[in-house]
């Protein structure tokens, strides 16, 4: 099949005596929408945190385009092309929507403090370009009219959209979405599904944590199921739905399994 953008090999993450991830193998192919599901506490968000450098894994490897990224600084990992959103919206509330995206897009800027101070030609050009791009991204997420409003003043749904726009602002190759549909009504979920597909069409790879099964089954190419820090399934949505292990994890095992 196609090439793997992101690959976790034997990834183990222990917090003291708790094993949050136990030798997880997982990969994401270029250009696909891969869903990561599992019951609460299965370790889904921990996977995101380990990939983005929030935690250093106890054991295992994380390969991004074939290169190990464990131990790299967070901003470095973001700069390589991995962006994420958060389960609980974590915008910069005191910044406008536009500035939220600009802050993220600064990661690829060459000019820094001196350029900003003296307004060098490069700094001004970069600033102009990233402004145009930020406006584009806001339009793309259908919140262009919100660009001058503060993050904290946006309606909930727009805050979630802005989080995605901000993540896209870092020009990632892969975007990690942590429960983007949380708190959405059915109509909003349908709109979100379309947006995620549009994101894929733009050439981004998507790794998605979600609880809403209809959303996942509708858009993902592949579903990975975690339970108690272990991968118990990795297949097309249809197959996963009928997998006895998955059903057991979600609904409890039949009586003979105890």
């Amino acid at each position: 099949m196609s090439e793997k953008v992101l690959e976790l090999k034997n990834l183990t993450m222990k917090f003291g005596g708790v094993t949050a991830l136990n030798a997880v193998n997982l990969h994401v192919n270029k250009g696909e929408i891969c869903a990561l599901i599992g019951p609460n506490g299965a370790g889904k968000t921990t996977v995101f945190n380990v990939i983005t450098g929030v935690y250093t894994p106890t054991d295992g490897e994380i390969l991004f385009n074939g290169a190990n990224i464990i131990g790299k600084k967070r901003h470095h990992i973001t700069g390589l092309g991995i962006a994420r959103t958060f389960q609980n919206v974590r915008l910069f509330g005191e910044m406008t929507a536009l500035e939220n995206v600009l802050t993220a897009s600064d990661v690829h800027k060459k000019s820094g403090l001196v350029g900003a101070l003296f307004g060098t030609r490069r700094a001004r050009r970069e600033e102009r370009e990233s402004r145009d791009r930020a406006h584009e991204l806001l339009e793309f997420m259908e919140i262009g009219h919100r660009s001058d409003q503060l993050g904290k003043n946006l309606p909930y749904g727009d805050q979630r959209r802005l989080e995605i726009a901000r993540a896209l602002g870092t020009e990632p190759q892969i975007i990690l979405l942590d429960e983007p549909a949380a708190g959405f009504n059915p109509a909003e979920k349908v709109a979100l599904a379309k947006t995620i597909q549009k994101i894929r069409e733009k050439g981004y790879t998507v790794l998605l944590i979600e609880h809403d099964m209809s959303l996942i089954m509708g858009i993902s190419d592949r579903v990975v199921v975690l339970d108690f820090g272990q991968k118990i399934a990795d297949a097309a949505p249809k197959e996963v739905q009928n997998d006895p292990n998955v059903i057991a994890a979600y609904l409890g095992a039949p009586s003979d399994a105890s």
Partner: protein
Amino acid sequence: MVFSAKRYSRRGYDVSEELNLRDQGAAMWESWNRPKRVAFAIGVIFLVALLPYAADFSITSVLNTPITSYQSVLVYPVGMFVLMALGLNIVVGKSGMLDLGYVAFFAIGAYTQGILGTKTGLSTWEILPIGTFLAMLSGLLLGLPTLRLRGDYLAIVTLGFGEIVRLVALNSRETGGPNGITGIPNPTPLFGQRFTLDNPKAYFWIVLVMILLVIWMIRRLSVRRPGRAWEAIRQDEDVASLMGVPTLKYKLWSFSIGASIGGAAGVLYASKIMVIAPDMFTLNVSILILACVVFGGMGNIWGVVLGATLLAYLPERIRFITDARQLVFGLTLVVVMNVRPDGLLPRKKREKIAVKDKE
């Protein structure tokens, strides 16, 4: 200062709903074109530059400070406090790092001037960049290991640093120990102005130039990458780093820029008062500068300028009530912070004010 709020508001957002001078001022500024802005800025600078003469007329003589000379008060504490509060504001207000040892950088600047001024033939103007650089360097050295800490922990470490610098000054032979350094030379004349005890105006204008330089710098940085990075770090450092902001690097920049401004103020201060001693650089000064920042409005340049001006000037103005002075000062702080908890001119709310590139 009552502007017609409706005139300047956009998108039906009525700024007059609450008393918000900051937003009204910013909206007014927004509505101007460049020549108008430049003319306004020059006008304001000109008026401020005339401040030393402000108390000369019979109506305005209330401005005069009893006991101390009004013109001297404009230099220290007013000018110096504004300068240092602006520097500290970059650290505390912009990037959200609580620094309780800011006086250390002021002391480093002052002692650089004290030692180099008495032992070498260098003039203040030559020592100024050296002192600024040394303060910056010490900010960097202190910041490298400690800026991984946050909040209260960072506050404690910086508090310790402030005390360390003072104690080193108190116990070293080079710094004159508890007696400090005497006979520090005044600055050499510049632009026909003599820098002597009886000509405080000259010092005021130099401090004013430094303040303007710092304001220009902060405004420049604020609307571009560094300003956004600081703002992001202040609001949520974890998210900032995950969105690609090199947090340690920008925290170090913030810390060392703030430090260098403190250092520059110290050099000039030592050169003006000619005598420095360790007990001028106590924790009290750090706290007072911090109070200026909080009182005026953390993160907002004009708030900080206003806060520092008032907090520096007020105690001098009410010196005649002797013992009750500190009481009134403290009471003012308490009352104002209760009425305006975010400071006199709070940080921007600027819903409608898009940051624009001026080109």
